Structures are given as C-alpha cells and as structure tokens.
C-alpha cells in the first residue's frame, strides 16, 4: 500500500503523560457524572445499584477502556486517528472501513446535541453570576424558567436570542480549542479545566455535606447519602437494574464513541496504555462516585426531603441540575457564586468531552484528504452549527431525544460490541494481549484476557439484545418515545426528519470513506504502511 502523504502532515503528539491522562479523563468526565449518576443510583435501589455498577465497571468499563486504548494506539502506528482506518488496520477486509463509519457518525451526532446541552451550562453560569433566576424559589417556577430557555412552553421569561447566542459562543470555544490541535488545544484545556472542575466539585461537596437541616429534625445531607447508598436487595433480581448500571458505565467512561481511540492514536508503541487507561478510569470514577454522588441528591434531600428528592430524581437529570440546584443555591449564603461553581464545573465537564468528539472527525479529514487542521475544525463547526440550530428549534419535538437514543445510547453499545469482537476475536486474543502490554508499566491480571475475550462480548450482546427488544424496536416503530411516552402525532414528522438526517450522515461518511480509500490507493487486503513514531511520553 502506498504511504499516505497526508498522514505525515497530520502527525501530532501529546506533550506529557499527565496531560494525556487529564485529557482522557476530561473526555470521560462529563455531565453524566454529576447529573445522571446520582439519579440513576437513587432510582435503582441505591447500594444494590452500586453492586451492579461496580460489576459493570469490572466486566465492561475497564476491559473496553483497554480495548479502545489498544485499538487507538495500534491505529496510530499507521497514523490512523479515525475508526474506519483503525478497523481496517485490525482486519484486512474491505468491510472493515465501512463498519468503522459508526466511529465517525456517533461522535459527530453526539457532539451536535451535546454542545447544545453544554451551552445551557454556560448560560446558567452567567445567569447565576447575574442572579437572573433569583426569585424563582420553587421547583415549579425554576422548571418553567428552564423550559423557557429551551423554548418549550412560556417563551417570555427569556428572549428568543439567548439559546442561540449561548450555543454559538459554546461552539466557537469548542472549535477554537480543536483548531489549536492536540497539545496546544485539547491538552492545554484539560490541564486548566480538570483541576478547576475538581476544585469546584470538592468545594460544592463540602458545602452540601456540611449543611444543617432546614428545620429541627428535618432531613440532613446524610439522609441524602443514605438515599443513594441504602441497598434495596429486591432490586438485584430486576434485569433493569443491571442494564441501568451497564448503561451508566458506558456513558460515564465515554466508551463506544471513537474518542478514546482517537486520543490514543497519538501515542507511540512504546508508550504505556495499561496503567494510563486504569488511571483515567479511576479519575473518572472518583469524579462520579465520590463527588457526583455528594452534591445534587444530598442537596435536594435537605431542601425537599427524601420523598421530594425521589420525585425530582425520577423527573430527570436535567431537572435536578438546572432547576433543583438553582432553587437550593438561592437559599444559601453566596448562592450566586455556588451557582457559578456548579454550572462552571458542568461546563468544564462538558467541553472537555465535546472537544474529544471532534477529534476523530478532524483526524479523518486531515489524514485522508490532507486538509489543514484549522480548515477542518471550522468546517466541522459550520456543520455542527447548522444541525445544532435544528436541535434548538426541534427540541420540543423530540429531535434531541431521538439522536441521543440512536447515536448516544444504542449506537454506543453497537459500536462497543463490534470493536471488542474485532480486537479480541478477529485481531486474535494473543495479539491483542501482547499489543496492550507493549510499553506497559503494569501487567494486566491474566483473568482480564478471559473477561475481554468472552465475558465482555457476552455482556454486550446481552445488553444489545435486551435493549433491542425492549427499547430499540418499539422506538423505531414509534410505539413509544425514548423517554417511554406515547409519541405525540404532531411530532412524528420531526422525528422522521431527524432520522432521515441521521441516515444521511451515515451515507455521507460511507461515501467519504470510499473516496478516501480510492484517493489514497489503499489496498484493503494488504494494509497500511507503518509511519515512524519518534516522540514518546
């Protein structure tokens, strides 16, 4: 196969190992750590959820983390920072590159709606600093305030321009960071953003956990922790609990997205991935279990009692984050600055994840078409802007839920199932195991070879089959919405249009991959030429 000329110009590196781990952890730590995890734990049997959660972490999360780092670094040997190229490097078959299109589609689709949600956190940081929502002291009035911003229902609270303006600014910051590259953009952002995130989260956790009950004998923050951790053993027999825990592990570790692979592709074959992958997972879990579980739910319990917090938790993660927490902050000294810290930490959690989603797409166009990084980044920004505007306008019609289900939920499990089979079965367990240990600072316990070869794929296929029957099919046939409700007939045209756009994105990437392979004269049966990797961490 002819060497790819574009590849050499697309070569970049991480500046330091700590920078790499912070960027990887920044990719993993997202809104789900602080909003989704506590409500999932509280709604699914508390301590019992933690049993299923840690089981999924050991059997799914850590193995998939290593698989993705392994696939990424292997792709990097051929300067392939995108999944079609990585899959083609693992499996010398013409179908591999087309299967890999899922690794371009998922990050693009998720980036579009995730950047929009991220813009809410930036907006609410400003609204906290300016005390804009102060006065909305009940959950109901804050939900109205939030929905007005989302252009659902009463739109008189906020001007129409606000969601568009904050989305534009958020997207601009994202693309500016991406356009600066791996070391000068993404790594620098992680080195600034992650410490701020951890400090803000730690301060908020201390403030919440030291709050006094509002009335003598009233609920305390410890009642909130009790609500999260007290086990309901009867729930362990419920398959839904195990699926919820597995789903949370997927979302929190950012596996099945193509982003960890893209970051790992900038490592050399002598760089460690076994220990770095584990450190990344540990950092994410600390943010989630220790900090994420200690803020929103305990605060909600103090102000609304256990029954009220249960109601809030079951009404959705966004209501906790964007309605309940502002109600709480209004009652506390320095509430506006606590609000700035809360939404600021969510913003940093979001942006360190969304820039990762851009990385495989930028890598694809740079490496395969030789386009300059800045040009690709701003071009990608234009695409995200167009579809992001649609997300704003069609949020009330279910577009975000639809894309989140097919791209950010079901798509992740499909992607992970494919990659684990390719790495552990097609690439073969011995080669995969040896590849993971190249340059490794630790020996991975041998039991994980068995887990990664048999248990993880089986676990994934079980989830896939279960979700396929219980959710994917009824959602596809519009028997229900991703939220579980009966679809509103007025929304059906919007849902169909949202799906048509998703299908068009997949087809476009298939055509682009075909063009790239033809343009560069790749031979699927021969493989790629190895590139010289010099810079080690």
């Amino acid at each position, binding site marked *: 196969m002819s060497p790819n000329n574009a590849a050499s110009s697309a070569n970049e590196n991480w500046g330091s*190992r700590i920078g790499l*781990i912070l960027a990887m952890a920044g990719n993993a730590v997202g809104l789900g750590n602080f909003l989704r995890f506590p409500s999932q734990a509280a709604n699914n049997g*508390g*301590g019992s959820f*933690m049993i299923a959660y*840690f089981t999924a972490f050991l059997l799914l999360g850590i193995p998939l983390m290593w698989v993705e780092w392994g696939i990424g670094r292997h792709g990097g040997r051929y300067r392939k920072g995108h999944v079609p190229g990585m899959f083609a490097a693992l499996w010398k078959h013409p179908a591999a590159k087309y299967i890999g299109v899922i690794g371009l589609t998922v990050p693009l689709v998720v980036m579009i709606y995730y950047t929009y949600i991220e813009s809410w956190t930036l907006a609410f940081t400003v609204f906290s600093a300016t005390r804009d929502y102060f006065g909305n002291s009940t959950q109901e009035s804050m939900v109205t305030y939030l929905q007005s911003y989302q252009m659902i229902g009463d739109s008189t609270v906020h001007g129409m321009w606000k969601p568009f303006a904050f989305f534009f600014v958020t997207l601009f910051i994202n693309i500016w960071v991406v356009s600066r590259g791996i070391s000068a953009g993404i790594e620098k952002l992680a080195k600034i953003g992650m410490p701020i995130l951890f400090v803000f989260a730690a301060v908020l956790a201390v403030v919440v956990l030291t709050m006094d009950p509002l009335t003598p004998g009233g609920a305390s923050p*410890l*009642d909130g*922790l*009790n609500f*999260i*951790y*007290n*086990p309901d053993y009867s729930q362990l027999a419920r398959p839904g609990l195990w699926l919820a825990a597995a789903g949370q592990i997927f979302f929190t570790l950012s596996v099945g997205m193509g982003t960890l692979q893209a970051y790992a592709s900038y490592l050399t074959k002598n760089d*460690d991935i076994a*220990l*770095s992958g*584990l*450190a990344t*997972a*540990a*950092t994410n*879990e*600390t943010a989630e*279990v*220790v900090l994420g579980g200690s803020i929103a739910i305990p605060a909600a319990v103090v102000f609304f009692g256990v029954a009220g917090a249960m109601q809030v938790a079951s009404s959705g993660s966004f209501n906790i984050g964007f309605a309940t927490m502002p109600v709480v902050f209004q009652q506390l000294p320095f509430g506006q600055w606590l609000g700035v810290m809360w939404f600021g930490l969510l913003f940093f959690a979001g942006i360190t994840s969304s820039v990762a989603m851009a990385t495989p797409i930028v890598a694809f166009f740079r490496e395969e078409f030789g386009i300059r990084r800045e040009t690709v980044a701003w071009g990608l920004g234009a695409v995200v802007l167009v579809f992001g505007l649609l997300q704003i306008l069609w949020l009330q019609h279910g577009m975000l839920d639809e894309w989140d289900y097919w791209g950010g939920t079901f798509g992740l499990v499909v992607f992970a199932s494919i990659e684990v089979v390719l790495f552990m079965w097609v690439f073969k367990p011995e080669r995969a195991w040896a590849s993971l240990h190249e340059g490794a*600072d*630790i020996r991975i316990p041998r039991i994980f070879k068995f887990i990664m070869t048999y248990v993880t794929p089986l676990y994934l296929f079980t989830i896939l089959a279960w979700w396929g029957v219980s959710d994917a099919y009824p959602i596809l046939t519009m028997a229900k919405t991703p939220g579980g409700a009966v679809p509103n007939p007025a929304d059906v045209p919007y849902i169909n249009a949202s799906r048509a756009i998703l299908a068009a994105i997949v087809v476009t990437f298939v055509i682009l991959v075909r063009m790239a392979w033809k343009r560069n004269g790749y031979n699927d049966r021969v493989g790629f030429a190895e590139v010289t990797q010099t810079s080690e961490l």
Partner: protein
Amino acid sequence: MTRTAIAFMAISWGCVLTLLVWSFARILSSDAKKKP
C-alpha cells in the same frame, strides 16, 4: 444513615480512591525510573 448504607458508601469510595491513589503512585514511580 443506616449502617448498611455507610458500609456501601465506604466500600464504593474506598474502591475508587484506592484505585486512583494506586494508579497515580505507580505512574509516578515508573516515570521516575524511566528518567535518565
């Protein structure tokens, strides 16, 4: 908080914090060994 809840919380926090401290300690020690 019930004793069971405290136990579940302590085990959960203990597991992740141990993993965090152990992994970063190993990284620091292996990086120190690699330095010429």
